[in-house]
C-alpha cells in the first residue's frame, strides 16, 4: 500500500480549507447548484451538497486535482450523485410539468397520458399532480412564466419562443428569472416524491 499522499490531489484537510476559503459568491453558487440538482431526487439541497462533499473526502471517493477549480469539481460531484439518485429512483414525474404548463395552446399529448403510458405507480402519479399543483399555484397568474418554463424544459431557445409567441427578450428574461428564483427558494423535493 502506498501511504504517501498524492501531491496531485487535495487531501481531506486541504479540501476542507479550500471549501471554507471560497468566496461568498462561490458558496452561494454551490448552494444554488445543489438546489437545482436536488430536483427529482429524494435529497434536499443541503443533503445533496453534504453528500457530494463527503464523497470527495472519503478514502475511495473522488479526488480533487490541484489544478482543477474546486467549485467546478464539486458541481461535477453534485451532478453525478444527483444523476445516480434519479436513475435509482426511476424518477419520471416531470412529464406533467411542461404539459400542464403548456396551457393547451398547441396540440400535445395529455400530460397524464404520458404517465399512464409509462405505467407510473399511483405514488408517482400523485407526485406529478402535487408538483403540477404547486407550480400551477405559483404561476397561476403568470402565463408568460408558464410558457417560458415549458419551453426551456423542451430545449427551445429564447429566440425560438420569443418569435413563436411574440415575446420581447426582456419579458422572457424576467419570467425566466422568476422561475429560477422560485426553484432556488423552495425545496421541491417533497413535491416530486409526495
Amino acid at each position: 500500500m502506498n501511504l504517501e499522499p498524492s501531491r496531485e490531489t487535495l487531501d481531506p484537510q486541504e479540501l476542507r480549507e479550500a471549501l471554507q476559503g471560497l468566496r461568498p459568491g462561490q458558496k452561494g453558487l454551490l448552494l444554488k447548484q445543489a438546489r437545482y440538482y436536488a430536483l427529482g431526487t429524494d435529497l434536499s439541497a443541503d443533503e445533496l451538497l453534504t453528500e457530494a462533499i463527503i464523497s470527495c473526502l472519503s478514502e475511495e471517493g473522488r479526488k480533487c486535482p490541484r489544478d482543477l477549480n474546486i467549485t467546478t469539481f464539486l458541481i461535477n460531484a453534485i451532478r453525478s450523485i444527483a444523476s445516480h439518485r434519479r436513475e435509482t429512483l426511476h424518477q419520471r414525474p416531470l412529464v406533467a410539468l411542461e404539459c400542464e404548463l403548456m396551457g393547451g395552446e398547441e396540440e400535445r399529448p395529455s400530460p397524464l397520458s404520458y404517465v399512464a403510458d409509462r405505467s407510473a405507480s399511483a405514488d408517482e402519479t400523485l407526485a406529478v399532480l402535487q408538483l403540477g399543483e404547486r407550480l400551477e399555484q405559483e404561476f397561476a397568474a403568470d402565463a408568460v412564466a408558464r410558457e417560458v418554463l415549458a419551453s426551456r424544459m423542451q430545449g427551445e431557445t429564447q429566440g425560438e419562443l420569443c418569435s413563436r409567441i411574440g415575446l420581447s427578450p426582456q419579458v422572457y428574461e424576467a419570467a425566466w428569472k422568476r422561475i429560477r428564483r422560485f426553484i432556488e427558494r423552495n425545496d421541491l423535493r417533497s413535491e416530486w416524491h409526495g
Partner: protein
Amino acid sequence: MADLPKPPDEALVQLIDELDQEAQQLDEAQLLAEGAEDFGSIEALTTHFDQLVDSACDAAGRQRLAAARQGFDNSRTTAAPGDRAVLAWPLERKLALLAELRAQNHAASRYTLAARNEAQLAADIDQVLEDLLELGAIDDQGRLR
C-alpha cells in the same frame, strides 16, 4: 423544437442544465445579492455553507474511522485461520505441543496444567492454544517462545 415532449427524465435534466448554465453566468455581485436575499445576509449564507462543510467533514471522518475499524476487524478475522496454523493441527499434535510445554517446564505450562486438562474436548484445547498465542507463549506455527 421537437414535435413531441421530451420524456420526463430528459425534460428534468434539460431544465436543470438550463438553470445550471444560467447560474454559472451570474457574476459575484449577482450571486451575493441573491444569496443575501435567500439567506437573510451574506454572513448567514457563508455560515450555512461552512456548517455544511463541517458536518460533511465530520461525517467523512467518522466513515473513514469506521472503515479502518472494519478493515482491522476483517484482517483479524481473515488472518486467524491462515496465520494461526497451530489451531488447524490435529488434536494429537496439539496435545503433543502442550505436553512439550509441560516437559520443558515452560512458564505457560503452569497455565495449561492449572487451568486445563489436556484430555478435554478439542474445542477446549483450541481455547488453550489461542490463549497461549495471545500470551505469546507460542507463535502461529506452534513454536515455543
